[in-house]
């Protein structure tokens, strides 16, 4: 029974973390203007308890600032992003980050980027992913165009 409770609390913690990243995304999208706390909770369908918890968590991490503002005669908070998260997409899956031989890697050394199979595989996989993504977009566009053509023919 205790274990089940622990599992539930862990699941809840995970879902709060997921929500934290969603909330931060929405705040970032509003730019310098920020977003009213009450509007944010409505958009994400959150209770004010969970919402305030998330806002305080983001403030504690130094990612947002909470400004107290009077809106329609009621005090609320405006959440404004303080710093944007750095983009790490381009180095996702890069072998160098976790390579044990990284400190020995030099152009003329026994461990070298010139002979590294890992870096070679990584760039090739990344390129094939990009090509697949492009294919998907093309297929979707073609399918949509075909549907439109069929609909216009039927009319």
């Amino acid at each position, binding site marked *: 029974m205790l274990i089940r409770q622990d599992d539930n609390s862990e699941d809840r913690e995970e879902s709060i973390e997921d929500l934290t990243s969603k909330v931060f995304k929405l705040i970032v999208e509003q730019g310098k203007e920020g977003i009213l706390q009450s509007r944010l909770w409505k958009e994400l369908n959150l209770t004010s308890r969970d919402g305030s918890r998330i806002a305080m968590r983001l403030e504690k991490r130094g990612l947002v600032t909470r400004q107290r503002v009077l809106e329609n005669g009621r005090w609320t908070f405006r959440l404004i992003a303080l710093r944007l998260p750095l983009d790490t997409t381009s180095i996702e899956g890069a072998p160098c980050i976790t390579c044990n031989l990284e400190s020995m890697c030099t*152009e003329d050394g026994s461990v070298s980027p010139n002979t590294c199979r890992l870096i070679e595989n990584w760039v090739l996989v990344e390129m094939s992913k990009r090509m697949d993504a492009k294919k998907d977009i093309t297929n979707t566009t073609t399918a949509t165009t075909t549907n439109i053509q069929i609909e216009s023919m039927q009319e």
Partner: protein
Amino acid sequence: MEYEDTFVKIAHLLGGDDYVRVARALLNNEDTTDEEIASATGLKINTVRKVLYDLFSKALISGIRVRDEKKGWFVYRWRVKRDNVDTFIDGQKRKILERLRIRLQYEESNQFYHCGNYSCPRLTFEQAVDAFFRCPSCKAPLNLADNSMLKRAIVAKIDELSKEMQKNGEGSA
């Protein structure tokens, strides 16, 4: 992951889910101990320690040694070094970019020969001549290997990295 804290993103790049859980626990409770992290994440204490030492070795977290009042022994309280997080990502990108440029130059300035077996190494023209166009590993004949796909893949990754670094204002690539 796109809108996660940068520290959590790094943790994900370094070691996946276990690292992410430890990173989030560190962000939620500043100056926390390995045991507190283990109970908050449900991970084994050994796993938590392994992750903490790895993050510490990369200067992403710092530890303060304090005496545990109940037990009397010393424990470490860990804290995220926020200032080092962006520098770490920037450094990784620069290193990878530099390695890709070195590799591209090598690919462009050489002709390669290969026997067709994945486990055997590719040889440059000079090495192939010395080996009488026979693979030193499996003795199969060597043929000219087309590296145009690899060159395109490296160029595409270099472009992506350079653009991302400029977008994030991480200096000129």
